[in-house]
């Protein structure tokens, strides 16, 4: 069971209080009517799914209820950072921030 620091509760909490929410920073197009079929399909279905450092969404559903983002290493399960929804991915100085 992972331990995840909720950026809103400012406290590490057990994984069983959270729901996983898939890749972070996949923005919904502001004007969906104006994007091409291919762009829309990419928004719907294309995800990076890296082996390694991954920015992803979680919801503290059995806690404060907030969605937030976490940077997690999918190999070691290490959670490198958590931050509020709407904030940009922190640069952890490991070169993974722009390597999507």
């Amino acid at each position, binding site marked *: 069971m992972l331990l995840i620091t909720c950026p*809103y509760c400012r*406290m590490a909490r057990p994984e*069983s*209080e959270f729901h996983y929410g898939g890749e972070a920073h996949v923005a919904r197009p502001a004007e969906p009517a104006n994007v091409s079929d291919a762009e829309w399909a990419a928004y719907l279905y294309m995800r990076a799914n890296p082996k390694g450092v991954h920015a992803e969404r979680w919801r503290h559903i059995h*806690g*404060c209820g*907030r969605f937030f983002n976490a940077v997690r290493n999918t190999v070691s399960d290490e959670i490198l950072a958590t931050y509020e929804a709407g904030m940009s991915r922190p640069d952890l100085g490991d070169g993974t921030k722009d390597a999507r």
Partner: protein
Amino acid sequence: MADRIAARRSALEGLALPSSAGLASVTDVGVAARFLYRGAPELVAGVFGVELPTTPLRANARLERAVLWLGPDEWLLLTAKADDSTLSATLSNVLHGKPASLVDISHRQVGLVVSGPRVEALLNAGCPLNLDVAVFPVGMCTRTILAKAEIVLWRTAGDTFRIEVARSFAPYAVAFLDEAMHGIA
């Protein structure tokens, strides 16, 4: 025209609340008014009479009223009496036209008081949080889980917690605590 007023029936009616002599016990909070408030904290504090805590996971209590921080824009307002209609009207009036949400959830959940020297062990049968008083001090509150039920947990004294649980999960929560009593000796 209705010839009589309907009677209330609590979700806990008919349930034996568990207790283990000298270790821990569970009691019913009884009828209470509850509101879920979302919006700016200063809008309702004056009317409700208790400041809304802005520090995460903290509850403020005064006399028979309490406000529990549940999320950054979400508070649970509790009163010990079922004065829901007058309080509800007062709060609604003050919030009229304001960007905020107040929803009466008095019947949505039930309150339990869990108390005793082994209360931490009892709750830790199903709650994965660290309940050491140094980590979860008096006045701390949070939504969390008790085995397979979501609860709100609020420490009101060193050896006493209040649990709020959705009414349809209340029989499960009570049965779980009853079972857990066997593992705390």
